[in-house]
């Protein structure tokens, strides 16, 4: 970047600035809601989460069943591709590792397609949802996850741009190839690493 913008100095870079990936700003206490589809009306009674595709044991959990698994919490930052980041959030639910230990991925599984009760999809390398880096969550900052933010449950993969953290999550399909999801087919990056600014296809 050889040219700067006439007259632009930007906001003071606070102590939090080093926590922000390039091109991101701290949204503070607000949490923007950005969704391309109607907010669904999901009932806990009908809710389910499934793991299917290339696993030894395809399986589906009800709301009660998934709550009986070992709980897990993510505490840290999230980064939206529209350039806001929200620092110091706490999401509670269950680790995707716990779910995959039960479903047991086959050796040829390399990617997952996360799918939602709305039909939304997003694709991730299997390695990005294992090793303590992804959760299925139903609480944020100690309260039930609001429906606008993906409740009753959403995927949280905080080391990638937050569109990968599918709202209203319904399951993971394990694949032996990468299969672009909703935003990825509409111009956004297949992996979406905020530290590499992988915002759009070709980045």
């Amino acid at each position, binding site marked *: 970047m050889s040219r700067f*913008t006439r007259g632009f100095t930007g906001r003071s870079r606070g102590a939090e600035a080093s926590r922000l990936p390039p091109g991101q700003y701290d949204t503070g206490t607000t949490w923007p809601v950005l969704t*391309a589809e109607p907010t669904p009306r999901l009932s806990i009674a009908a809710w389910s989460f499934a793991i299917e595709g290339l696993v030894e044991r395809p399986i589906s959990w009800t709301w009660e069943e998934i709550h009986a698994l070992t709980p897990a919490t993510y505490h840290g930052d999230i980064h939206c591709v529209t350039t806001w980041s929200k620092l110091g959030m706490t999401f509670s639910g269950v680790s995707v590792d716990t779910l995959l230990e039960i479903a047991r991925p086959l050796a040829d599984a390399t990617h997952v397609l996360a799918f939602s009760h709305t*039909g939304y999809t997003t694709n991730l390398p299997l390695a990005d949802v294992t090793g303590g880096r992804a959760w299925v969550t139903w609480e944020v900052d100690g309260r039930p996850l609001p429906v606008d933010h993906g409740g009753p449950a959403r995927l949280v993969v905080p080391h990638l741009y937050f569109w990968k953290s599918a709202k209203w999550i319904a399951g993971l399909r394990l694949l032996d190839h990468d299969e672009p999801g*909703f*935003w990825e087919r509409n111009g956004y990056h297949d992996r979406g690493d905020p530290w590499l600014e992988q915002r*759009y296809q*070709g980045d």
Partner: protein
Amino acid sequence: MTETSAESPAPTPWQFATVVSITDETSHAKTFRLRLDRPATHLAGQHYVIRLTAPDGYTASRSYSVASAPEGSPELDFTVERLDDGEVSTFLHDVVQPGDELEVRGPIGRWFVWNGTSPALLVGGGSGVVPLAAMLRLARRTGRSDLVRLVVSVRSPEDLYYGAELPGPETTVVYTRRGPHGGTRPPGRLTAADLPLAPRRAVTAYVCGSAGFANHATDLLLDAGIAATAIRIERFGPTGPT
């Protein structure tokens, strides 16, 4: 939901654009006309990212919808609302002048787009009218106003963008706080009665506005029998996925 396209798009590189003119739309919104170094054809509803860079390399970028119709021009209109705490919008409003160069990237987004050939119900709240204006302008320019119906909800006449251009048989303006002198509809929140729904079963709805407005408008559409899969939404702040 379904997708608009399955092909993998080409990368959209950053480029510079020159500010050609700045026009007041309301006391809080200005339209910036930018001439692109390398023009690209956009679809009605798409957006660009505008990136500001400080001398020390610090950057701030936000997405802004294109307000102008696709018409092969190297000049694009972006209407920007000034948010008091908006790092980019306050700079654009308070500092940028005609002749300045801004770094832009786009067009981006292939979900909230209208192809110009299918029935569309456009529902915008406040500055959410901007991408819908591109769709209305496209419809009028191509002589297909029969395909679109636009409903815009604003607080008062002073908050309406494109006020001189909007009126027409295909548009409705709803005032939530205070209507124009002589208006017949009492001011109030958007209702199902404000939406031209009945004869347009195959319609795709495009809803743009704040999260609260988008949820309200979407509920009205769902209650009226529009399928969730036929509703495309762009919620503020900036546009795009989370």
